């Protein structure tokens, strides 16, 4: 009898356990079977061009379970809007929801589809329309209902990502089966759930849709970093863009000791998802505020086209309010006089009518966490405008104007680039698979500055003051791209002035005056000039500019470090050492100075000091790619291969595309007998390294486009004045002395 009772009890317990297990996993199993059926059906007609085990190549998107997912598995945004009205309202007007459907995107992806085939668009749509990719919709004779296209990156695409791949980009995420709730055991419940269940268990809703990584820049890197793989272009790995790496190299990441300036730690979300007071109900709000789902940035084209006036207004406000750029009309030079009158406003000078004046304008990328403009800057139009007017308001000189046909003045200074094909033709219409080289790139990286020179002539009859204005303007997108999309009959798209500065130049005496509160202090003005000269390879002028910084701030270690690093680039190592030693006297253990000091010590054969310095840098900045790279090289040169390998492996964790890491690891692994790993790294190096033939494509383009070949010379001058017509004669060789450290002939 007892045995019977025990047996019955055991059976009952087992049954109960089985039922519990079934209810917890039942929901998952309910999803598994239809998903398998769906996946099998899609697979029967899917184009597995890139291999059955790589259904989403040339994109990097991955999904749990490795099978296609029914598009209906993703609850749509209107479902979420029931409780998250503020989020929905913002998202609907923002770029992410319009990532697929906009004509600005469709025009270029359609060219890819028509030219190569829809299967290649899996590269683009891994980020622009992941549901289409994961549902198996990007194939000929697709049987996928594409009603989700309107929603692009919908709520449950971001909020269903379960993990991130390494920061390779191209859709570097692992998507889970969408779930808005977990059960009491933490198992995800696929699909939609009644709203009252969510409200009863909001913690389980949060557990399903929120992850810590959503707040990190690495999450953004899944798509805001892209390359063009050989599966797309039948060529090799080509870097497309990497906003993430630009951020990581900026002051805002606090991961790079080599920035010219420092700043508070700020993530992508910190700028682009600022908390603001809600205007509509939202259960996700905290204390009446909500992290913005507008992702305000530079795109004015989408809200303009769709009539999202609120988004357009806020985008323009964002561009203007962030103190992102500083424009400094820094100096003038009169023709025939080598003396630079600078910093303008801080020193007295005289001007006469009929003077020819060179103006030095420094544009500083002051507070952007990435370059101006990041990503596809061949399509975006950020440019400098420079206007000189007489006292009656009549224009004397104007560079960077918009022509009647809406096109930008060809000779404007444009912060753009020009990707070209192997025939040296500009890659218009974003046909990225044809890119083989970049003929020039006039971007300004985060924290850096660029010097643009303008020359104009003061009329002989000028009496009153001359007004000089320099601006940074932005248009999303460039006019010729808009013409390709719409034909020429489209309205003028918004032009936004991001930053500007005006100075008044008197004919006669110009005394020094108080600084404008919006101007940088003089030491920073000289520093930015020095940075500009450095990037334009004008080392003498860079050292002189940085020396002015030291005069104004003799206790500023970075001033000396800047002299040091300029001399390193100039290969004047003994001069560099003097400056760096001074920097380290003022600021011992200064990582920036230590890094450059290590490079000098390497040149002079002081290996122990070199390694000690780099180790200190790595201790302070463990995610510094430069320090890891150089320390790896140092160890390699010492035949300390284990230590070298460790550094390059860590470097590869920071940047999986780092070329030095691939190169050195391929050698180190081979030395260690790890042949497979060596071969893998070697193959990655080969596909990612610079193509030595590519400069010829750039040169072909520049020969055919003199207006741009001028721009590609770093120290070019913008002017309407005719060139001196005297014939050029070769200079006779001259002996002379270097600035320091020796003589040269």
């Amino acid at each position: 009898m007892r045995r019977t009772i025990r047996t019955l009890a055991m059976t009952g317990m087992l049954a109960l356990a089985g039922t519990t297990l079934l209810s917890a996993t039942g929901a998952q199993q309910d999803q598994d079977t239809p998903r398998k059926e769906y996946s099998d059906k899609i697979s029967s007609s899917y184009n597995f061009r890139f291999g059955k085990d790589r259904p989403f190549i040339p994109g990097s998107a991955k999904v749990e379970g490795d099978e296609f997912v029914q598009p209906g598995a993703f609850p749509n945004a209107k479902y979420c809007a029931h409780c998250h009205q503020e989020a929905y309202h913002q998202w609907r007007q923002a770029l992410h929801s319009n990532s697929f459907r906009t004509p600005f995107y469709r025009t270029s992806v359609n060219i890819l589809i028509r030219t190569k085939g829809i299967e290649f668009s899996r590269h683009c749509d891994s980020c622009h329309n992941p549901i289409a990719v994961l549902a198996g919709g990007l194939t000929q004779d697709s049987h996928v209902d594409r009603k989700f296209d309107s929603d692009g990156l919908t709520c449950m695409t971001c909020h269903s990502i379960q993990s991130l791949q390494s920061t390779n980009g191209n859709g570097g995420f692992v998507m889970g089966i969408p779930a808005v709730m977990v059960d009491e055991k933490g198992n995800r419940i696929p699909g939609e759930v009644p709203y009252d269940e969510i409200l009863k268990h909001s913690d389980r809703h949060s557990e399903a849709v929120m992850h810590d990584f959503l707040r990190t820049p690495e999450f953004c890197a899944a798509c805001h970093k892209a390359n063009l793989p050989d599966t797309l272009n039948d060529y090799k790995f080509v870097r497309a863009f990497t906003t993430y790496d630009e951020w990581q190299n900026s002051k805002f990441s606090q991961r790079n000791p080599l920035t010219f300036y420092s700043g508070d730690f700020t993530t992508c979300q910190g700028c682009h998802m600022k908390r603001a007071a809600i205007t509509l109900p939202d259960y996700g709000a905290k204390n009446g505020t909500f992290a913005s789902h507008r992702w305000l940035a530079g795109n004015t084209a989408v809200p303009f086209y769709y009539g999202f006036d609120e988004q357009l207004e806020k985008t323009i406000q964002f561009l203007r309010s962030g103190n992102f750029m500083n424009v400094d009309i820094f100096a003038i030079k009169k023709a025939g006089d080598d003396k630079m009158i600078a910093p303008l406003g801080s020193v007295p000078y005289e001007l006469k009518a009929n003077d020819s004046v060179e103006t030095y304008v420094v544009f500083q990328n002051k507070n952007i966490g990435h370059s101006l403009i990041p990503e596809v800057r061949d399509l975006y139009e950020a440019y400098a405008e420079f206007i000189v007017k007489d006292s009656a308001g009549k224009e004397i000189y104007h560079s960077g104007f918009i022509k009647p046909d809406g096109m930008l003045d060809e000779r404007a200074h444009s912060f753009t680039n020009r990707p070209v094909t192997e025939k040296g033709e500009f890659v218009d219409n974003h046909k990225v698979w044809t890119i083989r080289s970049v003929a020039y790139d006039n971007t300004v990286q985060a924290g850096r500055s660029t010097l643009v020179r303008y020359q104009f002539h003061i009329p002989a009859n000028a009496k009153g003051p001359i007004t000089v204005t320099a601006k940074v303007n932005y248009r999303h997108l460039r006019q010729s791209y808009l013409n390709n999309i719409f034909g020429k009959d489209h309205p003028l798209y918004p032009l936004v002035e991001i930053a500007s500065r005006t100075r008044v130049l008197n004919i006669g005496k110009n005394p020094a005056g108080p600084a404008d509160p919006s101007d940088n202090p003089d030491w920073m003005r000289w520093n930015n000039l020095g940075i500009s000269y450095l990037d334009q390879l004008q080392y003498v002028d860079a050292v002189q500019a940085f020396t002015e910084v030291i005069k104004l701030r003799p206790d500023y270690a970075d001033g000396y470090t800047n002299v040091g690093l300029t001399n390193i680039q100039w290969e004047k190592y003994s001069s560099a050492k003097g400056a760096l030693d001074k920097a380290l006297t003022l600021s011992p253990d200064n990582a920036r100075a230590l890094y450059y000091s290590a490079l000098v010590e390497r040149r002079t054969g002081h290996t122990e000091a070199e390694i000690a310095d780099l180790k200190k840098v790595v201790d302070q900045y463990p995610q510094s790619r430069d320090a890891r790279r150089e320390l790896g090289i140092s160890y390699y040169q010492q035949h300390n291969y284990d230590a070298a390998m460790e550094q390059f492996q860590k470097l590869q964790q920071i940047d999986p595309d780092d070329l030095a890491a691939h190169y050195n690891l391929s050698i180190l692994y081979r030395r260690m007998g790890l042949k497979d790993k060596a071969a893998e790294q070697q193959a990655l190096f080969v596909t990612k390294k610079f193509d030595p033939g590519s400069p010829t494509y750039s040169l072909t383009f520049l020969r055919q486009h003199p207006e741009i070949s001028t721009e590609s010379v770093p120290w070019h001058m913008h002017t309407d004045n005719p060139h001196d017509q005297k014939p050029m004669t070769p200079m006779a060789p001259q002996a002379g002395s270097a600035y320091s450290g020796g003589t040269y002939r």
Partner: protein
Amino acid sequence: MRHLRLAFFVFVAFLSATCHADSLCPWINKATAFGVLGVSEESPMASVSELSATVCNFTYRDGNITRELRITVEQAKDPEQAFNAYKAHCGKDGNSLRAIGNEAVMCATNKGQGEQVFSRVRDNVFTITLTTSAGNDPTMPRDVLIEKAGLVAEQVSGNLF
């Protein structure tokens, strides 16, 4: 035997026509088109006809209800004039549609049991006609007709860009 042979050839010809027609609407796929009509593409009540680069016709028939989606696309020598001619069909009842092609207008048709969209993408002019035969079609009330016609217009214009 002769009848069998004839039947066989007719069958093959029908099959060829159907298979050929199946793949010839470049502006919207069948799954999406029939999704708009409220049915799966595999349903026996779903049928296609006149599929080409210039005309796509999708039909759903269930008893007394017939829903139809018709898409026409033409490349016009004078696209502005062609669009205006189509736009005239709507007359004063036409509502401009934002963010469809270069320009677009929508109006009711079929005595209020349908919606039409006329639009232009560069030099291509297209029309969308979405109709239901039922006066009070529970699946396609007026607001749903308007929404779905807009959805189709967005699909077609997106593929034309």
